[in-house]
């Protein structure tokens, strides 16, 4: 049966969003994105260094049928994020934005106040806004109220691969979510992604765990399978955890019984 992810009225068949960072080559990235089945792919926006044009144009390696999602990485204030989003849109990127406002270079955690401020302004300006936040159910409600299209809490510090360390706060966000909840950052392996989906996350966003795997293409496929496994399990109805042991074979009629 069909079970699309719906963000801002647009349907997506895949619940695995992927980033394009940290791949060894664009060729590997292209193959991994294909293997992931991802339909939403993030990119960053940076100045061109005129003295060093650097590597090829990433857009040449991105499938045409995916939604490019520019992020505002590198921005430390609402103003910088708004400026970056508007530049990306004017230049021909979609009017969707993965909103990141990260003041601290050490822990790379998002700023709740600036993120909320930027989100309100960008929604006002016609953007479809997907904000990246620390798991905070109260902030989630505020972001929903200003019109964000999703809320994207981190599972653990970005790039750490530690999994759902802040599970208790994310569980509350899932319970009360009114727009899709996307777990973003910190997922290190497919089992982490499957757990997030089983908990009821609407989607997950993965970058480092795929890009830095020994074999990124195989790992992309593994995450694709895990996300589908977790979503399927949620819909199939997962058994209740019990404290007690319960036999799976009959308790009577053993061969030796008189």
């Amino acid at each position, binding site marked *: 049966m069909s079970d699309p992810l719906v963000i801002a009225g647009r349907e997506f068949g895949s619940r695995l969003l992927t980033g394009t960072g*940290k791949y060894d080559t664009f060729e590997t990235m292209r193959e991994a994105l294909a293997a992931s089945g991802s339909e939403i792919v993030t990119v960053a926006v940076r100045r061109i260094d005129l003295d060093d044009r650097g590597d090829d144009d990433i857009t040449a390696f991105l499938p045409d049928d995916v939604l490019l999602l520019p992020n505002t990485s590198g921005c430390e204030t609402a103003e910088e994020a708004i400026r970056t989003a508007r530049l990306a849109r004017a230049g021909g990127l979609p009017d969707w934005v993965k909103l990141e406002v990260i003041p601290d270079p050490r822990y790379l955690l998002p700023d709740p106040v600036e993120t909320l401020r930027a989100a309100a302004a960008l929604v006002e300006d016609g953007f479809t806004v997907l904000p990246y936040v620390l798991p905070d159910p109260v902030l989630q409600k505020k972001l929903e109220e200003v019109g964000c299209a999703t809320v994207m809490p981190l599972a653990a510090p970005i790039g750490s691969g530690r999994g759902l360390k802040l599970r208790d706060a994310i569980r509350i966000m899932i319970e009360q979510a009114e727009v899709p909840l996307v777990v973003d*950052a910190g997922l290190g392996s497919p089992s982490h992604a499957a757990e997030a989906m089983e908990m009821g996350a609407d989607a997950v966003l993965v970058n480092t765990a795929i890009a830095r795997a020994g074999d990124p293409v195989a790992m992309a496929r593994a995450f694709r399978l895990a996300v589908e496994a977790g979503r399927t399990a949620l819909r199939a109805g997962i058994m209740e955890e019990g404290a007690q042991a319960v036999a799976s074979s009959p308790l009577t009629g053993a061969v030796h019984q008189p």
Partner: protein
Amino acid sequence: MTVRVNGKEQPVEAGETVAGLLERLGLGARFALVERNGEPVERARYEEVRLEDGDSLVVARPVAGG
């Protein structure tokens, strides 16, 4: 006349357009994003918008990111 592109002086001919500048900078083929004097320039207007002396431009592009 001259403009600043990503902080560096660039000589431009009078009446040169954004598209023309990108071409001269070898960025014609690139997916370039342009901000002029703090305001983003619509891609559709790269051909129309004519630079003026002292303009300050930012030229960016999408790159790999998460």
